[in-house]
């Protein structure tokens, strides 16, 4: 192994270890991180770091902040460089071998579109967010950790763009993700989620993203999604996914340390942190409705259902986590029981909504094949046949009469999560949509759930400013008054949207892979 140059200076540590001139992990971390900070003298620290007190968080000793991986910059470059070399070798091989044709079927690509439109821009947003948080936190351990994470997240955005650009040569919906992210209605859900976090203070941001999102919830995204990509033959996505996820495990760990650090610093921090955990659990859970739909409907070969993933990663693993945190006075996030009750409904309701509005999206939808409906019945014995199968079968019968159902209206959006008001009251009547309201300064605001209403009621000044795509369309700010005006304004091309059965993607796929037994070839 290469010896970094600074080890040469470390002769005084030699007596402590058997191997001479080599510092222990802890010593290296302290020298390469803690030693990089200083007390400013030209300006007082409070003026240099003006944003780390207004949230009410009290920090008495920043040295309590430790990166559990004790990763130092030199090791960071070395290991990240190695990850990149592996990843790009695989991307090259993938492209040279036309491996995009090895995925299960072209429907799968729509999961990739949703990921690329909705998640990859979040990686970039995270890079900006951590750069900002690192600038605003005065503890050196926190600053270094945020810096590394900002670089990680930038790497994720770049590697995803590089990987998926190859798919863009063959499939629709992948051509302008950053543009669509700013304009398309369903992408305002992830966009506003991250902008909510970035426009909070630095402590709320790291609690929201590192703990609430990364630690509590991202296993639900990355583990089933990437394993699902592997199961569906998408080698390139698996590779960028796991390459990113190996960074995520570091981020998640940091998320847990952040929460413990805040709670250990001062008892007054507890109610603030608990509020953030409640808020960001619910915000993150709502965002994952997209993942639920992807797992249950968009992977032609399925690894596990959303409901099973929720049980493993939230109920069991999250349960153990919150038992751990109980000694700090932290309890399970508010409304976690609502999320668990919704697990039998979430993916079906979300997919049904996308099916309704797929003429205004940059992806395709479809009715599940009969064997896929049977899988859903088996995985959701209490809900699928009773509430959802009849609806899909009815829509299927319409499509077969050439009357494929597209909803011509625009949905009402929740003021907080910006998802159409599609969630029902699964506790008492799963056919009834939940609708909550708050009046603030004479204007009425609408919410999909008690969780989203609570978030608004706590900081109404923030959420009244939300940019809601449907409201903006009606106000004439989105390119015009017709659907095609709006869709053009979002840079969605005709081939990007509509039912999969009529799509260019499907026709091309059949031609290229001869799936139609040569009829179009």
């Amino acid at each position, binding site marked *: 192994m290469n010896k970094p140059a600074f080890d040469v200076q470390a002769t005084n540590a030699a007596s402590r270890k058997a191997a001479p001139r080599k510092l222990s992990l802890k010593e290296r971390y302290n020298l390469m991180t803690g030693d990089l900070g200083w007390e400013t003298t030209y300006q007082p620290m409070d003026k240099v770091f003006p944003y780390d007190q207004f949230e009410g968080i009290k920090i008495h000793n920043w040295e309590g902040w430790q990166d559990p*991986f004790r990763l130092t910059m030199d090791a960071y470059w070395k290991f990240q460089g190695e*990850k990149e070399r592996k990843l790009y070798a695989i991307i090259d091989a993938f492209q040279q071998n036309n491996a995009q044709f090895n995925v299960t079927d072209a429907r799968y690509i729509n999961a990739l579109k949703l990921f690329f439109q909705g998640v990859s821009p979040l990686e970039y947003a995270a890079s900006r967010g951590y750069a900002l948080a690192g600038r605003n936190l005065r503890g050196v351990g926190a600053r270094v950790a945020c810096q590394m994470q900002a670089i990680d997240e930038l790497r994720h955005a770049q590697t995803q763009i590089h990987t998926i650009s190859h798919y863009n040569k063959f499939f629709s919906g992948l051509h302008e993700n950053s543009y669509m992210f700013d304009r398309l209605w369903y992408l305002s859900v992830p966009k506003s989620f991250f902008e909510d976090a970035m426009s909070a203070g630095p402590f709320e941001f790291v609690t929201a993203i590192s703990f609430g999102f990364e630690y509590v919830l991202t296993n639900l995204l990355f583990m089933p999604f990437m*394993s699902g990509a*592997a199961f569906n033959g998408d080698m390139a996505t698996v590779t960028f996914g*796991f390459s990113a996820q190996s960074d995520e495990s570091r981020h998640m760990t940091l998320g847990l340390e952040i929460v413990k650090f805040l709670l250990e610093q001062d008892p007054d921090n507890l109610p603030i942190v608990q509020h953030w955990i409640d808020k960001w659990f619910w915000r993150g859970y709502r965002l994952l409705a997209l993942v639920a739909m992807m797992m249950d409907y968009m992977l032609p070969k399925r690894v596990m259902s959303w409901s099973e993933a929720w049980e493993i990663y939230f*109920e*069991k693993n999250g*349960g153990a986590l919150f*038992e751990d945190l109980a000694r700090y006075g932290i309890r399970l996030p508010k409304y976690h029981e609502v999320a668990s009750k919704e697990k039998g409904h979430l993916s079906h309701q979300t997919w049904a909504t996308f099916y309704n509005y797929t003429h205004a999206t940059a992806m395709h939808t479809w009715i599940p094949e009969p064997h896929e409906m049977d899988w859903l019945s088996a995985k959701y014995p209490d809900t699928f046949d009773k509430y959802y199968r009849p609806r899909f079968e009815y829509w299927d019968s319409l499509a077969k009469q050439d009357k494929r159902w597209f909803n011509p209206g625009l949905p009402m959006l929740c003021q907080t999560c910006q998802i159409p008001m599609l969630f029902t009251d699964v506790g008492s009547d799963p056919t009834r949509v939940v609708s909550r309201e708050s009046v603030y300064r004479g204007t009425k605001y609408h919410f999909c759930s008690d969780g989203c209403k609570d978030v608004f009621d706590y900081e109404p000044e923030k959420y009244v400013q939300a940019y809601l795509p449907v409201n903006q369309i009606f106000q004439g700010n989105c390119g015009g008054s017709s659907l095609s005006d709006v869709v053009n304004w979002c840079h969605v091309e005709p081939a990007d949207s509509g039912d999969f059965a009529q799509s260019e993607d499907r026709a091309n796929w059949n031609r290229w892979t001869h799936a139609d037994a040569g009829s179009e070839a």
Partner: protein
Amino acid sequence: MSANNNVFIALQATDEARSIIDAILADNPAATRIDYPAMVKIDAPGRLVVRRESVSERLGRDWDLRELQLSLISLSGNIDESDDEFCLVRG
């Protein structure tokens, strides 16, 4: 909610990770292995340890614990890392 005190580590199903997985299963008799496409998840009650020596033996070379980063997908539990051991613990 039916909670438990399991910790877990998830690793890529690659040639290098195979040695890490074997070492973990040998060093943690209570651990259970679950195979998913491209991924192996190992659950263990309360505590799980990755030992540098055990992995080095199986790989036939000196393995730096921080190389774990190259194979890691996800984990759960509190981390305690030294030069020789990487531990995941509850509580």
